[in-house]
């Protein structure tokens, strides 16, 4: 299996600092994109990027290539870091920040559909009702919470939770086929 990012993470686990620099060079633009998309504020995204690579270096030894690709592992750490920060923010600033980046959801998703690697994902999303598929995508890509999703779809919180849980299990059934 050819996974250059995984190889670099393994070298970081062995305290190879040159590999760490290469990893930053090769992955920081993508991870900055993840942080900025979820956190919306550039200064906080840059702050989070420093914390992210610190975590990557310290946790590199825990990466198991058998469980997934290197970039998937890095993006999972980036999303968790960004979502933790988002959820720890005071409620008022979560949706109307001052210096926010416009959300590029539709454009990104149109492109997503065109990409071969994501084809099965989009085929499976197509088995969900459109508003539920949109809720799952919105949460994954922009860090929307249950509370925000419920408001956006104008349904009670518990209804949103039931919808989403059912949709996730249905999605799994399709993806695992």
């Amino acid at each position, binding site marked *: 299996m050819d996974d250059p990012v995984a190889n670099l993470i393994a070298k970081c686990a062995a305290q190879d*600092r040159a590999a760490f*620099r290469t990893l*930053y060079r090769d992955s920081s633009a*993508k991870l900055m994109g993840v942080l900025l998309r979820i956190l919306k504020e550039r200064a906080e995204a840059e702050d989070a990027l420093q914390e992210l690579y610190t975590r990557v270096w310290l946790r590199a030894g825990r990466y198991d290539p058998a469980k997934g690709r290197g970039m998937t592992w890095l993006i999972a750490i980036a999303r968790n870091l960004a979502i933790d920060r988002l959820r720890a923010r005071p409620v008022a600033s979560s949706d109307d920040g001052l210096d926010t980046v416009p959300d590029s959801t539709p454009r990104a998703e149109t*492109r997503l559909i065109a990409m071969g690697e994501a084809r099965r994902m989009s085929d499976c999303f197509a088995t969900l009702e459109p508003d539920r598929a949109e809720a799952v995508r919105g949460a994954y890509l922009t860090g929307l919470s*249950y509370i925000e999703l419920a408001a956006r779809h104008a349904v009670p919180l518990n209804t949103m939770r039931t919808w989403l849980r059912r949709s996730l299990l249905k999605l*799994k059934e399709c993806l695992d086929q």
Partner: protein
Amino acid sequence: MTDAPLTPFEADDALAAEYVLGVQDLAERSAAEARLRRDPIFAALVSEWETRFEGLNHGFDAVPAPTLLPAIEARLFPKTSRPGSAGARFGLLRWLTGAALAASLAIVAVATFVPPQSPLLAVLATPDADLSYEVRQTGDALQITRVAGTAAPTGEVHQLWVIAPGASPVSLGLLAEGPLVVTYPAPPQGWLMAVSVEPAGGSPSGLPTGPVILTAFVASDA
């Protein structure tokens, strides 16, 4: 899709998916993170969902990242990446330009500013400095004082951790209203200190279970 209640396995699997999606609130997320640490089966479910959602990662546009690598390396590898006093002067400059510091990271350790009997080891602060703790060495103890912000709300507590490179976090105690004094040697340069939000009484597992809200590396320019 039926309206039958989820089986216990389905409920766990849905919980793992919710955690990976990130839709939960802070308390639910903290509970899921705690479970992740102690339940390898749940951790495996989370890992499977991370892979399942991999196809959505194309939806994140790459954005040119600022050149933060020198700052990251200076923090991770303090001795080799700071040539002589230039690094110390840079640290001092950052301390003086408070705005730049607040915008960059919640880390400072410039012991040159404080009396020698009570060196400042680290400042744990949010980027906007709304919440800030100072860690000072006093004799054979560490004194941790909140210099901005408020203690955690009722039912929660801020817990302080120290993490040696490559090791698991060790609790130094709970940060309530007053300063915390704990008998502990000054952590060496490059060790990480962190504050997490835990249920009242502190982490039940002995490791951080709630979100880590503040981190700072110990630096020593003393």
